[in-house]
């Protein structure tokens, strides 16, 4: 069955590459992300699958907001020159990239080393993580324990991305504070049901964060779930009263706290002095990382939404 899903994955990519109209491409991208998330799940990685499913919403939302609000109707007409009779005679301009790509593919296939995968490290991690770091989810234990450097640099990369987004987008504070009335034509049933669903999503995000060390989930996934709560909030009320400057400051402070906590617990070894259970460290780090990811995604989303309406 995994082969059927992988074939659908490849077909989706071919559709995206061959499609010439942007809004169809965005819908195909949403379907493609959902299918790739299921493939991750089939490979025995539910953590990665939850993260991909949460992030696919945000990439779709960014693309559709960018396409809709900033380009408007102008881009939709034709982004690529239409496939007409003159292009059909011009077929030979497609031949060099195809040949080049196939050449690289064959080169890659023939250039692989002939060693089987070494499973020594996997056995070590699986037998020792519960004693060294604690918890039952070995993925969370690895990215908060053995590989905490990667997590710190990932948080730094997210912070750099947010800073560059806020610098590149011009944005007027006064129009944001007023809170413009909605121009989305909404149905009452939709508003009511989304109001019912919003607290469920918030609760579910908190559940994912707090149970991150014993079940699939963790800081990243729960943070993305809580940030999608704010997407729903925008869909209902359509106001921009989020204090973005303050959220950026909060995010920087959280980053410093994350670095300090990791240094105290992992590199100095504070938990060997204190009589704390090991899961306290895991839960605290998951909460902080979840708050940081939430702040980052909220800032990027509201910057995208409020860019044009200044």
């Amino acid at each position, binding site marked *: 069955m995994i082969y059927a899903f992988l074939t659908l994955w490849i077909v989706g990519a071919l559709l995206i590459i061959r499609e010439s*109209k*942007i*809004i*169809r491409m965005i819908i195909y991208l949403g379907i493609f992300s959902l299918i790739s998330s299921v493939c991750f799940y089939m490979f025995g990685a539910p953590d990665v699958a939850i993260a991909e499913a949460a992030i696919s919403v945000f990439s779709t939302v960014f693309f559709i907001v960018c396409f809709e609000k900033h380009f408007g*109707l102008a881009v*939709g*007409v*034709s982004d690529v020159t239409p496939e007409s009779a003159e292009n059909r005679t011009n077929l030979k301009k497609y031949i060099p990239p195809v040949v080049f790509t196939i050449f690289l593919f064959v080169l890659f296939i023939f250039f692989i080393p002939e060693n089987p995968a070494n499973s020594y490290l996997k056995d070590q991690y699986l037998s020792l993580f519960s004693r060294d770091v604690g918890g039952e989810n070995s993925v969370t234990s690895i990215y908060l324990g053995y590989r905490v450097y990667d997590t710190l640099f990932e948080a730094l990369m997210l912070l750099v991305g947010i800073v560059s987004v806020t610098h590149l987008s011009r944005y007027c504070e006064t129009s944001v504070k007023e809170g413009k009335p909605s121009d989305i*034509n909404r*149905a009452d*049933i*939709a508003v009511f*049901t989304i109001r*019912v*669903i919003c607290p*469920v999503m918030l609760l579910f995000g908190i559940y994912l964060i707090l149970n991150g060390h014993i079940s699939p989930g963790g800081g990243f996934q729960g943070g993305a779930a809580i940030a999608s709560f704010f997407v729903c909030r925008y869909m209902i009320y359509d106001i921009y009263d989020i204090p973005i400057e303050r959220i950026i400051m909060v995010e920087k402070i959280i980053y410093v706290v994350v670095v300090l906590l990791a240094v105290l617990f992992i590199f100095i070894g504070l938990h060997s002095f204190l009589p704390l259970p090991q899961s306290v460290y895991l839960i605290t780090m998951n909460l902080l990382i979840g708050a940081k990811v939430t702040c980052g995604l909220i800032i990027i989303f509201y910057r995208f939404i409020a860019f044009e309406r200044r």
Partner: protein
Amino acid sequence: MQIAGNIIIIIGIIFMFFGVIGIYKFKNFYSRILISGQIDTVGALTVIIGIAVKHGISFFSLKLLLLAGIILLLNPLATHITARSARLSGYLAQEQEPPPHDKKDGV
């Protein structure tokens, strides 16, 4: 218990098969969205109830019922908003082809 669960799952799969037929049979968009929206929700719910029956009374089937509630709440709403969006954008039921702005804007 196993046999009853299997029978309920097969009934749900037959519902889904009707949904697949309906999505190809009708030429009109609103007929398609009506048939597939209803039958698909009912088929998914039936399959979930069948799996819950196979597991008996346990934590697993309790969580499955929560999931069934979420599907019952969200799935009709998604089809409703899609149909409403199509109607308000001027996609009329009588037309066999997409409206002219659809082609012109390259949607």
